[in-house]
Structures are given as C-alpha cells and as structure tokens.
C-alpha cells in the first residue's frame, strides 16, 4: 500500500501520458496541459511546507541565539511582510479584487525597489566570475585544455574589434582565416557538432531514465519501504 500504490500511479500516469501524445482525440490531447496545471496547484500547496520550513529554521535560529541570528529576524520580517503585502493586497489601488502586482501597491513597490535591484546585482556578479573562471580554466595544461583554450580565445577575439584588426591583412582566399570568420566557423561547425552529440545523448538519457522510473526500476525518490 505504501509503496505499491505510488509505483502503480507512476506507471499508469507515465505510460498514459506517453501514449496520449499520439492520440489527438479528446480527452487525451490535453493531458499534458492538464498535468502542468495540476502540478502548479500541487506546488502551491507544497509552499506551506517550504514556507513553514523557512519560518521554523529562522525562528529556531533566533530562539537559540545561534550565530548570525539577527539576520534571521531580517529574513522573517521580509518574508512575512512581503507575504502580508501580497496576500492582503495592502495598498492596492483596486483593493482585494485588484491584480496582486498592481502599480502602486505595497507588493509592487517592494518588488520594484528591493527585489529587482537585488536580483540584478546578483546576476551581475556573473561578470566578475566569468573573468576569474576564464583566467583559471583557459590554460594550456594538456591537449584537451588547449583545445578548450583555443576555441574560447578565437571566439573572444572574434567578438571584439581587435580580432578583425589583427587579421585584416588576410584577404582573398585567406579571408576565411580572419578571426571573426574563424569564430563564426567554430560556432557553426565544430561547436554545432558537439552540441548535437550532447543533445542526442541527453535524449537517450532521458528516455532511459523515464523508463526506469515508469517501470519502477528506479524508486529511491519514494522513500523507504515501511514506515
């Protein structure tokens, strides 16, 4: 009961959804869409578990005065404040009927003035990390690493004016050696080939993984046998 029923559910749902792909007739044609709707709804219920966990972790931290506990208060205030602003639609020009992110509501203000700059700044850290990662990774330590380096270097050069400038002397039949052309060629030929191999491999990996799940060969995610 505790494990057989779930395995059965997985099997039936998985198999039906695969077959439904080939049956356009109602109701099968919509199964995929229906599922994503169901999933969204289940996920919202699950938020109670996640959100509850977030509160519990930080309340415990504050209670036990663990390291950095004052920051937990900040998290809790931010979380509960944002939640209240959103669920009660505080300051929403259209009241509780209005769109939750309506311009002028507290929820939208918090989003615009706090959420957005944080998100953009965190994203922007990538510029730094791209720098430090290329410094370390692109070194000709062995053959593989050298190939990685050369490909990256040509592409990097090809996207700046230097690339053209360096090799503008190569004209006529040698013009394909100009770095921007070379960069385009790398993107369009060997890069494409590698991408294809990766993608076909992924397709096979997913198919095999899906079958293992549907057939119940892989069942670790269901937890233990008897509880």
């Amino acid at each position, binding site marked *: 009961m505790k494990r057989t029923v779930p395995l059965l559910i997985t099997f039936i749902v998985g198999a039906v959804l695969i077959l439904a792909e080939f049956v356009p007739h109602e109701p099968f044609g919509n199964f995929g869409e229906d599922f994503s709707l169901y999933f969204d709804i289940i996920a919202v219920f699950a938020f109670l578990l996640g959100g509850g966990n977030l509160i519990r972790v930080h309340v415990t931290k504050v209670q036990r005065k663990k390291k950095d506990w004052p920051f937990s208060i900040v998290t809790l205030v931010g979380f509960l404040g944002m939640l209240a602003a959103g669920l009660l639609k505080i300051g929403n020009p259209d009241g509780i009927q209005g769109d939750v992110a309506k311009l002028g509501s507290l929820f939208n203000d918090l989003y615009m003035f706090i959420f957005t700059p944080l998100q953009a700044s*965190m994203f922007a850290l*990538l510029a730094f990390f791209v720098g430090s*990662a290329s410094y370390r990774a692109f070194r000709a330590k062995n053959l593989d690493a050298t190939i990685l380096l050369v490909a990256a270097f040509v592409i990097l050069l090809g996207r700046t004016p230097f690339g053209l400038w360096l090799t503008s002397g190569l004209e006529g039949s040698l013009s394909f050696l100009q770095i921007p052309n070379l960069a385009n060629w790398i993107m369009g030929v060997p890069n494409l080939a590698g991408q294809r191999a990766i993608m076909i491999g992924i397709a096979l*990996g997913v198919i095999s993984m899906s079958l293992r799940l549907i057939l119940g060969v892989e069942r670790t995610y*269901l937890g233990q046998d008897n509880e």
Partner: protein
Amino acid sequence: MELLRSRIIIGITLLSMVLMFGSALAQDADKRDVLDSTAVRVGTFKKPVNLPIPAQLDVVEDSEGDAGSSITVSWLPSPDDGAGKNNVIEYQILRSESQDGEYVIVGSASRGMTQFQDATTTDGVTYFYYVRTISKDGGANSQISAGIQSSPQWFNTKDLDTFIIGLIICAAVIYFIYHAQKGKKFFLRQIAGLEAVDEAIGRATEMGRSILFIPGINDMDDVQTVAGITILGRVAKTIAEYDTKINMPVSRSIVMTTARETIKQAYVAAGRPDAYSDDMVHYLTDEQFGYVAAVDGIMVREKPATCFYLGAFFAESLIMAETGNSIGAIQIAGTAMPAQLPFFVAACDYTLIGEELFAASAYLSGEPKQLGSLKGQDVGKIIAMIVILGLCGLYTVASISDSVSLLDFADKIKGLFSAS
C-alpha cells in the same frame, strides 16, 4: 556471447529500419488516397485584365491527426505568384456553411504559400471554401470546394515515425533490463566524476566538514531534478555510512519533501535511521538569484569540503561553482543544460555531461537492472549513428551521381525524422 549480443543489436537495428521504411511507405499511400478522392472540382477560368490568374484549389480536407476543429486548405499557386506586375500579394481563404451562402474571410497566407489551416471550424458542420488571389489590382477567386467537415482523430498519423522510433528504443532498453535481471553481466566503462564520489565524501569526513548538495533550481517536473534526487539516494547512503554531515538547501518545496524521503531511506538502508534529521534539507526561496545569494553565503560560512551540483541549472551555475572553487571544495557537477555545461567544466573538478547525469544513479546503484538500461541506451546511439552515417552517405552518392530516384529514396527515409 559477444557474437550473440552484436547479432541482437544488428537485429534490432535492421528491424527498426524495416519498420521505419514501412511507415514511410504507409504514409505515402495515405497521401495518394487523399489525392484520388480529391474533394475539389476544378474548372477553367477566363483571366480578366489586370487581375492575377487565380490559384487553383488543390486539396481541402480535415486536418490530419488532430483534435478536430480544423480543416486544411491547400492550393496550387497562381502563375503570377512571385513575379511580374500582377505579382500576388497574398491569398485569402474564404468560407461559408452553404455553397451559395455568404463567404467570409477566415484567414490569409502570404505569397509563396500554398496551404492554410482553418482552425476555427466546428466539428460536424459542413463548410465550403475558396481561395482568393490578391494582387494590387484586386482579387481573383478559385473554384468553390465541395462540402467538408472536420473531426478529431484517434491516432496522430503524422507522428507515427516518432512513435516507432520511441518504441524501438524502449524495446532495446527493456530488453537489456530484462536480461540484466536474469543475471547477465555487462561491461560498463568508468566515468571519472562517479569514481570520485566516494573519495569526495571521504575527504569531507576526514576534514570534519559538511557536504553541500544542490539539486538544481527546477522543480520535480523536470527530469533533471529527478535524476539529481536519484543520485542523492546513492550518495546519501555513503554519507550515512561515513557519518558525514550533509547540507541540502533547496529552492522548491516539493523537492524538499522528496529529498527528505530519499535521504531518510538512505539512512535507514545504511542502518543508521537515528542519525537522520529533517534539518538536513531546508527550503530557501523559489527565486533563482535569491537562492544563489543564500547558497553562496552558506558556502563561505560553512566551508563544505565537497559540493555536488546535480540537476537543472541556469545562469546561477557559475556563481555557485566559482564561489565553491574559492573555498577549495571538491566540486562534482552534472546537468543536461547545454548552455551551463561550459561553466561547470571550467570551474568544477568533475562534470557529468548531459547523458552521464541520467546514467549516474544507475552506475552508482550497481543494480543489474539499472545497468541494463544503460546498455539499451547504447543501442539508441548505434541507431542514431547508423542513420546519420548511412543517410549522409546515401545523399552524397545521390548528389554526386545526380540520381533522382536515389535522392527520392533518401528523402523518404529522412522524412521519418521530420518529427513535428
């Protein structure tokens, strides 16, 4: 034994070729039927001055392999299409519920096109169509089609080839799972990232530091996350045996629930159920960059000795991997997001590339059934390789010898892979 196996593989491959070719022929036969029963009356036209020569209706039929509510109208292009001062601007498609009734425009198609799908029909209602060819001077009408109805189909014939290809790969995977179960042993090559798992956990144990496990930032409706969780199941067992600490911040509530079940089972299986605690897995936020901000914080403060990144990743991959690198952790990553693989390769010690991520849990489990499925995957690869090489060769021969019949033959087989 080796001989038998290769024979089976060749057998499956040949069978697949036969099946695919058969389905191509079947599809072709279908098309012929339609042409024979063309529901169109074709007449002759007088060309008025300055108006374009009208397009002629070709086939008007219920759209194939759909859920109904759609009729496909196709036409032979007007001779004025594409050139001249009467050049066609567009084709308008008009519809009525009775032959002599009022016709209304249901859509238009730009010049050069010869087909239109009217997806606004009601099943069971009879419609009549004609096509109006528009040039700058006005429009010229085609004949009116015979009455036609739309209806839903039970099988999508357009996807028959996909169905068969899927079936063959499934058959191969199931065949090898079955044989593995019977006790047949398969050779499997080593994957460096997986060989390193035990060592990485051992290192954390020796250093008395924790292990960080990141299952990506997608929810359980992404098979990559599921793959990450199944690997967690194996890794957690070793962690339980070594009595190492695991810290698993997640960005999805359902992943949290699933990960807890998985780790708990691993601890029970390792005979140490008491050592398990729900606190090993904790939820942070669904927001991609909020999650990374917190994970980065955890990394620099807790300094885990080992970091696993296994699942679906986006731009945050490099932020985490670089921070992990800066604290000197051993990093094992795996994802099927092609855009993020380069960053993991650059910043991590080991990276499971695409397919290897999905194979990892099978590898680590060591269960014959699971390993068998990997052998089945390889059959899929053989098919892909044979198809690619064979058809490219065929095309090349066809184009060098300029043989139309050979080209047609190659097109037909290639058409099997034109999945919609």
